[in-house]
């Protein structure tokens, strides 16, 4: 139900309200940023992952406003709905992909996003230095984006990639975990 509705909204917004930009430009821009980070951090890929996540976090906090402004959708009632909205509206309108939501944990707080395509990583071959294949998560900006965006709707989550075709894995997958719902904040000196 929720999935079908989300798919419809995503499709509609994508068709009517999104300014399109050349895909190569996006791929190249993102790729250059990652390559430059790898360079700046002397191939310390753990640190590069961290930086990408941080950049994503800052993007996510802004992107969520655009998401609501464009989609006109309301807050999700539960985490399942959130997952569908992420995949079928969020990823659809910003990257024109709809990663598959699957593999729910029994408590409904964890799911896996499987990326059948990933515009960020088109044409990318990881450096052949013996550790990039094991350490670098090329698209790690996405985890940060989800974290930043969901924090703005009072969900604290943790997200990390579990596999990436760039590393030679079969699929590209991200695991998302809901840590907690955050409370409304009060003014610090409210009495």
């Amino acid at each position, binding site marked *: 139900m929720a999935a079908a509705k989300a798919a419809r909204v995503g499709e509609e917004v994508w068709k009517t309200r999104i300014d399109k930009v050349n895909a190569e430009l996006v791929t190249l821009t993102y790729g250059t940023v990652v390559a430059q980070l790898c360079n700046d951090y002397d191939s310390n890929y753990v640190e590069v992952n961290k930086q990408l996540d941080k950049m994503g976090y800052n993007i996510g906090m802004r992107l969520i*406003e*655009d998401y*609501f402004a464009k989609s006109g959708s*309301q807050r999700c009632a539960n985490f399942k709905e959130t997952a569908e909205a992420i995949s079928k509206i969020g990823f659809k309108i910003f990257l024109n992909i709809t990663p598959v939501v699957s593999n729910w944990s029994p408590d409904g707080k964890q799911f896996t996003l499987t990326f059948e395509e990933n515009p960020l990583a088109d044409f990318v071959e990881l450096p052949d230095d013996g550790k990039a294949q094991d350490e670098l998560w090329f698209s790690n900006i996405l985890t940060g984006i989800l974290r930043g965006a969901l924090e*703005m*709707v009072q969900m604290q989550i943790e997200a990390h990639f579990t596999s990436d075709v760039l590393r030679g894995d079969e699929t590209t997958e991200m695991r998302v975990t809901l840590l907690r719902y955050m409370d409304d*904040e009060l*003014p610090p000196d*409210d009495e």
Partner: protein
Amino acid sequence: MVVYSFYIFDRHAECIYKRKYLPPGHKAPGSGLPPSRPTSSAGSEADTGNTNVSEARPPSKALSAEDDAKLIFGTVFSLRNMVRKLGGVDDNFVSYRTAHYKLHYYETPTNLKFVMVTDTKMNNLRIVLHQIYVGLYVEYVVKNPLSPVEHPGGVGVDCETFEVGLDQFVNSSLQG
């Protein structure tokens, strides 16, 4: 119809933007405030064609601008919570009216709160506030990479394009 003031509160309950609209030729005591950044006191040019509203300007003129914002936040926050208790989590209040003014309220899914105080004759402004969010706030503030996402310590939205846009929008569609 007259707009008295406009506020934006972020998810940390911080007032990140406030704007007062004064009738022409009217110098309220409250307008001699220190020009802290979130307050862009509108000059008389912001508001043309209003002549009949020099009395009864809410909220209380004796309050400083900061107190103003706090009071408004306290009011809408409590009202919102009360409404949710009564009507369920999806419920929200749209506006309330007193003998002197009407307060309009819109909250985004990201907990940004838009508040506009107008005279009592104003129609429902929920859609207008939504338009300000979508057309002005998201476009000019959120998408401005140099403008911070969070505004700790009362650093407000300081974005000229947003303020100009807001002025135009308010003047053209609400005032007069």
